[in-house]
C-alpha cells in the first residue's frame, strides 16, 4: 500500500476486493486480494493453495512407476508433458537408455500436448476479453487432439502415457496419418483465430502495452516459457538442453519484442506453427525399433540426486528427485512448475492497470492452479 | 371534474413526496423521493397541455440532474459525526430567516396578483413545441443565450477544478 503518495483533495479510500477463489476468470481457485484506487490496481496479492493436494509428499510414498500417474494431475490440461518431464528425470537419475522410436513418440505427444494446451489458453484468454467465439473454436480443435490421445493411450485428460524407459504402447495403425491430417486441419484453422483477434482493433487495444515486462525484469522475476520469450529472451529448453528427440528436429523459437500481452499472444500463436512443424517432422521420420528400453522390474535408482527440465507448454517444467538408493520411492521429490513461477510476475504485471486488465493478465501468463498448488 | 381529481391527486403526491425528501433518514432515499416529486410535477405539466415541458422536466431534472445528485450522495461519504448536523441555534436562525423569505415571497405574489391565470394567449395549440421554440428564439433570445453561456462557464470551471494539471 502506498502511503507516501500525496493525499488527494477529497478523502478517498482504497477499495479492497477479493477476486476469487470463486470467480469465473481466475482459471481455477486462485484468489487475488486487489487494492483498488477507483478502478486502478494499486497492489495485488495472489493467495494460492486452494488446490493443494500434496503431490510432492505423496510421491515420496509411492513407487517410481506409480508417480507417473500423479504427475498427470498437476497441469491437467497438459498431462503428457508432465509425464515426459518425470520419466526423463528418473531415466537420467537411473542412467537408462530410451529407444529412438520411443523418443520420437514422446516428441510427437508433447508437441500435440502443446497445441492442445495453447488452444485452451487461446480460448480462455480470448473469452476473458469477451470474445467467446474463439473459445468455442479452440475447443473444437482441441477435441481433435484429445481424440488422437484417446486413440493412442485410451485417456482424454490424464493420459499416463509414458513409462520409465520407454513408451507403454506403440502407435496404433494409421495413427500417424491421422496426426498429419490433424496438422493440416490445424494449420487451416489458425488464420480463423487470427482473423477474429490479431487485427481486431478492440483486441489490440485490450492487449497492446498491457502488462509490459522488460527482458531484465522477466529474467529477474523468474518468468519462463512463452511469457519470457515474448519479452525477447531466447530461452527454450528444447533448444538449450535438448531432450526426447528435439535435437533431431528443425524448428524456430519465436521471440517477442515489446513484452506485452499482445506479444505473448503472437508468440504462442507462432508456437502453434512451430509445433505443427515438429509434429510433421517427427511423424514422417518416425524410426522403426523397440519402444521400451531395458528396465528392471523394480526401479530402485542408485543413491544420488538430479534435476531435469523440459519445455512444457507453459514454460520450464523441472523435476528434482533425490534417491537414497535403498527404497523404491524417491527420498525427496520436488517439482518446479512453470505456472507457479509465472504467477509470481502477476503482481508486477497488474500494478497500475485496471480491473479489467487483471483478467487479461491472468489469462496471458497461462496458469493452471493444479500445477501452482500441486 | 376528472381533471380536478387528477390535479388534487398530483398535488397531494407532490407535497407528500416533498415532505418525505426532507424527512427521510437516508440521503439516497431523499434523492429518490425527489425524483418521484419531479415526475409528479411532470404529470401536472401534461395536464396543463404542455407536453414539451413535461418531457423536458423528466429528461433534465429527473433523468439528468438528480442522477448527478445520486452520484454525489453515493460517492461522498455522508456519515459525518452527528454533532456536525446539530448546532440547534445556528440552524434555528437559518430556518427562521428562510421561512421569512418564503413568506415575503408568497405575500408579494398574492399582493401583486401574479397568481391570476394568464389572460393572454387564449387556447393553446396542441402543438406548442413550436410556440415555445419561437418564444425562446425571438422574445427571450438574450436570456436564453446568456443562460447557455453561464452553463458553458460552469462546465469549464468544473473541468478546470477537476483537472488542475491540464
Amino acid at each position, binding site marked *: 500500500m502506498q502511503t507516501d503518495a500525496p493525499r488527494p483533495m477529497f478523502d478517498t479510500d482504497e477499495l479492497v476486493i477479493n477476486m476469487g477463489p470463486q470467480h469465473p476468470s481466475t482459471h481455477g481457485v486462485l484468489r487475488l486480494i486487489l487494492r483498488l484506487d477507483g478502478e486502478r490496481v494499486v497492489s495485488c496479492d495472489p493467495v494460492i493453495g486452494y488446490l493443494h493436494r500434496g503431490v510432492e509428499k505423496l510421491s515420496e510414498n509411492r513407487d517410481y512407476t506409480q508417480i507417473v500417474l500423479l504427475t498427470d494431475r498437476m497441469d491437467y490440461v497438459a498431462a503428457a508433458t508432465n509425464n515426459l518431464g518425470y520419466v526423463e528425470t528418473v531415466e537420467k537419475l537411473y542412467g537408462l537408455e530410451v529407444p529412438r522410436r520411443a523418443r520420437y513418440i514422446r516428441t510427437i505427444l508433447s508437441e500435440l500436448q502443446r497445441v492442445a494446451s495453447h488452444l485452451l489458453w487461446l480460448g480462455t484468454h480470448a473469452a476473458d476479453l469477451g470474445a467467446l467465439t474463439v473459445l*468455442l473454436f479452440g475447443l473444437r480443435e482441441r477435441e481433435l487432439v484429445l481424440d488422437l490421445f484417446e486413440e493412442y493411450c485410451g485417456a482424454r485428460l490424464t493420459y499416463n502415457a509414458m513409462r520409465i524407459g520407454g513408451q507403454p504402447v506403440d502407435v496404433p495403425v494409421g495413427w500417424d496419418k491421422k496426426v498429419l491430417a490433424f496438422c493440416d486441419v490445424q494449420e487451416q484453422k489458425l488464420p480463423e483465430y487470427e482473423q477474429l483477434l490479431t487485427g481486431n482493433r478492440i483486441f489490440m487495444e*485490450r492487449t497492446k502495452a498491457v502488462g509490459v515486462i522488460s527482458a531484465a525484469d522477466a529474467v529477474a522475476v523468474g518468468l519462463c516459457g512463452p511469457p519470457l520469450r515474448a519479452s525477447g529472451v531466447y530461452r527454450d529448453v528444447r533448444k538449450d538442453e535438448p531432450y526426447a528427440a528435439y535435437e533431431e528436429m528443425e524448428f524456430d523459437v519465436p521471440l517477442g519484442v515489446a513484452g506485452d500481452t499482445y506479444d505473448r499472444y503472437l508468440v504462442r500463436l507462432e508456437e502453434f506453427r512451430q509445433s505443427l512443424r515438429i509434429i510433421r517432422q517427427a511423424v514422417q521420420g518416425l524410426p522403426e525399433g523397440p519402444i521400451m528400453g531395458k528396465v528392471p522390474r523394480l526401479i530402485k535408482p542408485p543413491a544420488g540426486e538430479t534435476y531435469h527440465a523440459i519445455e512444457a507448454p507453459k514454460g520450464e517444467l523441472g523435476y528434482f528427485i533425490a534417491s537414497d538408493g535403498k527404497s523404491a520411492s524417491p527420498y525427496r521429490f520436488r517439482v518446479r512448475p512453470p505456472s507457479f513461477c509465472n504467477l509470481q510476475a502477476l503482481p508486477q504485471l497488474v500494478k497500475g492497470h*485496471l480491473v479489467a486488465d487483471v483478467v487479461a493478465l491472468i489469462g496471458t501468463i497461462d496458469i493452471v492452479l493444479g500445477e501452482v498448488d500441486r | 371534474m376528472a381533471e380536478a381529481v387528477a390535479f388534487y391527486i398530483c398535488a397531494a403526491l407532490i407535497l407528500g413526496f416533498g415532505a418525505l425528501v426532507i424527512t427521510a433518514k437516508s440521503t439516497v432515499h431523499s434523492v429518490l423521493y425527489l425524483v418521484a416529486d419531479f*415526475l409528479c410535477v411532470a404529470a401536472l405539466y401534461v395536464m396543463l397541455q404542455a407536453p414539451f415541458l413535461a418531457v423536458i422536466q423528466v429528461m433534465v431534472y429527473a433523468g439528468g440532474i438528480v442522477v448527478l445528485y445520486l452520484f454525489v450522495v453515493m460517492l461522498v461519504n455522508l456519515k459525518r459525526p452527528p454533532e456536525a448536523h446539530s448546532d440547534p441555534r445556528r440552524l434555528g436562525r437559518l430556518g427562521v430567516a428562510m421561512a421569512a423569505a418564503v413568506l415575503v415571497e408568497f405575500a408579494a405574489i398574492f399582493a401583486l396578483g401574479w397568481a391570476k391565470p394568464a389572460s393572454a394567449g387564449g387556447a393553446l395549440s396542441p402543438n406548442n413545441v413550436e410556440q415555445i421554440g419561437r418564444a425562446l428564439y425571438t422574445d427571450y433570445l438574450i436570456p436564453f443565450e446568456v443562460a447557455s453561456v453561464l452553463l458553458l462557464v460552469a462546465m469549464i470551471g468544473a473541468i478546470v477544478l477537476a483537472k488542475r494539471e491540464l
Partner: protein
Amino acid sequence: MVEALILPLVKIVIVLVAVLVTVMYIVLLERKVQAWVQVRLGPMRVGPHGILQPLADVLKLFVKEDITPARADKWVFTAAPIIVLVPALIAFAVIPFAGDLTLFGLTIPGRIADVNVGLLYVISVAGIGIYGIILGGWSSNSKWALLGSLRSSAQLISYEIAVTMTLVTVIMLAGTLSMVGIVQAQLAKGWWFGFMQPVAFFIYFVGALAETNRAPFDLPEAEQELVAGFHTEYSGMRFAFYFLAEYANMIVVSTVATTLFLGGWLAPFPNVSWLSFLGLVPGWAWFMLKTFGFLYAFLWVRATFPRYRYDQLMRLGWKWLIPLAILNVVVTGLLKVLV
C-alpha cells in the same frame, strides 16, 4: 367510448404481450445465433430445436428463491428492478408499429399514442431507467455490484449524449418530434433517413449497443471481470426483471432505429413504381422485419468482438462519437441552409 378507452387498452395489452413474448424469444434467438456462429447447436432439449426453452427459463426464474442480501437496503433493493423495467415498457407507447389499419369499418392507428414530442418522450423515459441500475448496485451492499453499477451509469450517461445528438439530425431532417411525423417525412422525402444520415445511423448503432449494455460494451455485466455487475446479488424474479428490462431496451432501441432510420412501417422504396408490389406486405410486417434485422446485428456483433475496457469505452464515446455526432449536426444544418 370504444375509441377513447377500450381500443387503447386493447392495444396496450397487445403491445405488452408482444414485447414480452419477443423478449423471451430474443433470448432464444440470441443463444441460437451465437451457437451457430460458434459451431454449436444451442438449446435443443425443450421442444423441437429448443423452441420451448424460453418457457422453461421463465418457469425456472419463477420458482427460484428470491434472496435479499444481508444488510441490503430492502426497499430500494426491491424497487430497483421495477424502476428499470417500467421505463423500458412504457417507451413503447409512442412507437408507431404500423400505419392506420381499417378493421370492421373502424380506422385504428397502428400505435398506442402519437404525442407531438414522441422522440423526446422516448429519450426522457430511457433516462429514468438509469436509476434502477445505480440503485440496484448501491442497495445490494456488495462492492462488485457497486462497481458494476457505477460503470454502467457512467456509460449510459456518456453514450446517451452521442445518441441524442444523432436524433437531433433526424429531427432537423423531419422537422417534427412526432414519431409518426418522422416516418411520414421519410415517405415525403422518398429516402429512409438511414441513407440520408449514414453517419448518424452508425453512431446510433454504436450508441445503442452501449446503452443497452451489449457486447462489445457489456462492461457493466462483464461476467469475466465483475461476475455480473450491478445485478450480481439479484436472483429469482427480481433478476428476471433486470433481464426483461435489458432485452426490452434492446427492442426499444431497435424499434426507434427502425422508425427513425429505416422508414418505420413503410415498404422499401415506396415511391419507386415497379417495386410497388412490396406494399402488399402489411406495414407491421415490414416493421417487424426491420426491427429483427437490427436486433440480429446486436447478436452478430456479440458473437464476433472482444470487449472494450472501461477507459477505452469512455475515450471512444467522448473523443470520437460525441464530436463526430456534433460535427454531423453542424454539417446537416449547413446543408439544410445551403441546399
